[in-house]
């Protein structure tokens, strides 16, 4: 298999011949992609295609892999020094005058750490993006630090990584790995990847896999023991580094990078909920982080604007929030903006949505847009989805927040009241999940849907029959959707805030009373909620936490959490509470 539209050349160095492919305009900044084990440069095909219209993309097969030739003899032919020679030869051939932006995955990243920390490459590397591959030197120091001071936590980290490295021990056995890869393992590998790692089937892995994997075993045998025993004390990076850590990596603990700031000044960190092979499973996210980092380095690397708590997780992601003109929606939009996400603020009130978008840009969102739509209007939502998908892209996070309040006894609630509250609170969520969730699933690169339900979803009350019904429906919808979308790596969360100080009380409808009384009750409930004074910002923080941890149901305020506990263990108590008619 070759990469579509790639120009190929052969580079001779140190007795081997490397196969180098180039895409894109050579006048643009050069991005060199280095593959891992057991892979060939084709692992990058999805990422490379996305980078090619902005950059000069260069990929090469590491010696002994793909269509590059293997050194003779194999033993001693894969040392990091020789791999650095190869890299220099490729860079001199493809970008003789300008430093290149280096990107490595797995063993590609391990060797790239060597490139970026040895003296002779200084000035040849403009930046380095590392994925799932630590520097062996840093790794060695990491182990030493934990062996020397084995606190329980550090010991746990050590043992955890030790268990994750089982395959490294196997690869050190003679001949066995070669036999396995050239035999049954090589044949079954694509299926294993698909099942265990969720790597989409297709033209990857390539036919050269058995020999790649057999030769590549020498990467481990030639370097791991030597480096871990005597890690270099001077392995400081001489170029800016961006670290992308998949949180579900089966082979590498995220704790490995805890001490990385010692070796890299101003490290840029990103995390994403995915398994090891992110160039295959998350090409969109990976390409956009590479593009962002390369562009920022080319532009002198200004200080990052977004400094929020989850900036590593949401930086550059596309987030849409409905009902973003006030209350929890607005606070959520701001929290995502602070974490560096691109924000689409949707509200019925155009002016309020514009305001949210403006302030979002001010506090860290690289881009923010305001859209006007009524979530209960199916056609308006369809148009919104079309506009968002064509203009901004597929969402990474959807927050269905828009909702209205309705209070009053069941018999004073008219069918119109019912329709109104269900249209906004339930149908609004259905439209959001249907229109945006479908595209998320279709893209196949994960995502998250957050539905703002309510503590009323599990706390019955004679005062809120319609509202509670709508929110209970949202809660169950979220749970069902979570089950359905689990296979697509899309998380679904229901947030149950409780009494939060927002203007939902001031706009709520009270049935069965005249207008003056309704206004009085609105003011009175607004005052009560004001006295409770639980800020929407805390709910927004809970939303971001819930997305990062992929939680299913999140009650937020203490009373919401208390009621949630009661609903499980003492539902009778809740039923008795439900009979109370709160005096307003």
């Amino acid at each position, binding site marked *: 298999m070759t990469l579509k539209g790639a120009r190929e050349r052969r580079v001779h160095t140190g007795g081997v011949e490397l196969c180098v492919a180039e895409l894109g305009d050579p006048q643009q900044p050069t991005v060199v992609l280095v593959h891992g084990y057991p892979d060939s440069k084709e692992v990058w095909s999805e990422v490379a295609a996305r980078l090619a219209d902005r950059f000069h993309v260069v990929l090469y097969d590491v010696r002994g892999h793909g269509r590059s030739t293997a050194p003779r003899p194999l033993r001693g032919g894969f040392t990091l020094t020789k791999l650095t020679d190869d890299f220099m030869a490729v860079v001199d051939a493809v970008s003789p005058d300008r430093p290149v932006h280096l990107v490595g995955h797995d063993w590609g990243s391990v060797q790239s750490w060597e490139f970026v920390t040895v003296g002779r490459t200084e000035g040849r590397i403009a930046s380095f993006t590392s994925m799932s591959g630590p520097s062996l030197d840093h790794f060695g120091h990491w182990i030493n630090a934990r062996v020397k001071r084995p606190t329980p936590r550090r010991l746990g980290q050590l043992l955890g990584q030790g268990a994750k490295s089982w395959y490294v021990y196997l690869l050190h056995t003679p001949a066995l790995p070669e036999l396995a890869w050239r035999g049954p393992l090589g044949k079954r590998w694509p299926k294993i990847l698909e099942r265990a790692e969720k790597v989409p089937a297709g033209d990857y892995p390539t036919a050269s896999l058995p020999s790649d994997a057999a030769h590549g075993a020498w990467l481990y045998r030639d370097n791991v023991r030597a480096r871990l025993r005597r890690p270099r004390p001077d392995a400081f990076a001489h170029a800016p580094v961006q670290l992308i850590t998949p949180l579900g990596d089966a082979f590498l603990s995220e704790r490995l990078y805890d001490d990385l700031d010692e070796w890299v000044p101003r490290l840029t960190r990103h995390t994403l909920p995915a398994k090891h092979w992110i160039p295959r499973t998350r090409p969109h996210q990976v390409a956009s982080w590479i593009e962002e980092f390369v562009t920022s380095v080319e532009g002198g690397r200004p200080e990052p604007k977004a400094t929020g708590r989850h900036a590593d997780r949401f930086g550059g992601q596309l987030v849409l929030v409905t009902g973003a003109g*006030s209350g929890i929606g*607005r606070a959520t939009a*701001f929290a995502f903006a*602070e974490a560096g996400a691109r924000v689409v603020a949707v509200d019925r009130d155009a002016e*309020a949505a514009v*305001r*949210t978008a403006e*302030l979002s840009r*001010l*506090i860290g969102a690289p881009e923010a847009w305001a859209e006007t739509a009524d979530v209960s209007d199916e056609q308006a939502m369809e148009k919104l989805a079309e506009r968002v998908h064509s203009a901004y892209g597929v969402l990474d996070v959807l927050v269905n927040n828009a909702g209205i309040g309705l209070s009053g006894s069941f018999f004073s609630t008219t069918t119109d009241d019912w329709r109104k509250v269900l249209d906004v609170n339930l149908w609004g969520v259905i439209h959001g999940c249907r229109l945006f969730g479908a595209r998320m699933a279709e893209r196949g690169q994960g995502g998250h849907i957050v539905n703002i339900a309510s503590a009323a979803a599990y706390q019955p009350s004679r005062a809120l029959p319609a509202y509670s019904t709508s929110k209970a429906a949202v809660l169950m919808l979220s749970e069902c959707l979570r089950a359905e979308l689990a296979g697509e790596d899309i998380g679904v969360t229901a947030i149950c805030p409780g009494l939060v100080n927002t*203007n939902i009380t001031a706009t709520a409808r009270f049935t069965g009373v005249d207008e003056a009384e309704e206004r009085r009750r609105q003011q009175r409930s607004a005052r009560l909620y004001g006295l409770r004074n639980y*800020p929407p*910002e805390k709910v927004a923080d809970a939303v971001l936490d819930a997305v990062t941890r992929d939680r299913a149901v999140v009650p937020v305020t203490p009373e919401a959490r208390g009621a949630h506990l009661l609903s499980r263990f003492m539902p009778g108590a809740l039923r008795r509470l439900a009979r109370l008619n709160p005096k307003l």
Partner: protein
Amino acid sequence: MTTAVSSELSAELRGFRRVQRLAYECAEAVAARLEPGVTEREAARMQRDWLRERGVRDWFHLPFAWFGDRTAFVNFRLPLQFFPTDRKLEPGMPFILDMAPVFAGCTADIGYSGSLGVNPVQDRLMADLEAHRELILREVRERRPLREIYQDVDRLMVRQGYANRHRAYPFGVIAHKVDRVKARRFSPHLFGFGTQSLKGLAADALHGHREGWSPLWSPYRFSDHPPRPGLWAVEPHLGFRGTGAKFEEILVVTDSRDPEESAFWLDDDLPHVRRWAEAK
């Protein structure tokens, strides 16, 4: 926005305006001297020294300085947290200087917001404070109850996307009355507040309690009365995700029937007002 022309100002108001201007000059002078590494304590001391050199001997309250997220009173629970700390100023950080000198018997109470270098968030907050200055004057002229005006300011803040931070002040006040203070040779202060001024405030509070008004303009029931003639130091304070901004200046309320005469800002030639005019 209209203000009674200076010639019409009584000698007494001219005295108040002089000390308010002096205080704002102090704020600008100190702000110009702030640099990375200066602490809140040092900034407060600089204000105190500057004003003492120019004859200020008594205070309504001692100068405050807040840096960084302390401008928005993040995590303030105790009144002691208002006092200056050893927080150091860093480039881009917002700051607020707040001082209330007494000079020749007249009190000023001002708040000055700024930042070391550029801070777009605080710029935005300051620009949005203009609407609050207009709203407060308009509704005071309409003789709306102070509590309702407070709630309208609150609503405007929420619509703008900000949090009400004057709520953190003692009694959650957006404003308080200031008055003449007798010059005494010995004028100690208590928890940062001048005893002479506290005495005046307490006397007002006592009178007000009997007559149904309060020298503190708060969201509570005791502020449910039309504006009381006198001088009010008004201090709307906006907060937005760890950045705060305020202004504070004197609003003159009279018992005149002419709306324009019934309430006006003591001085329209202040840094924040000039800034808004320049932006237009």
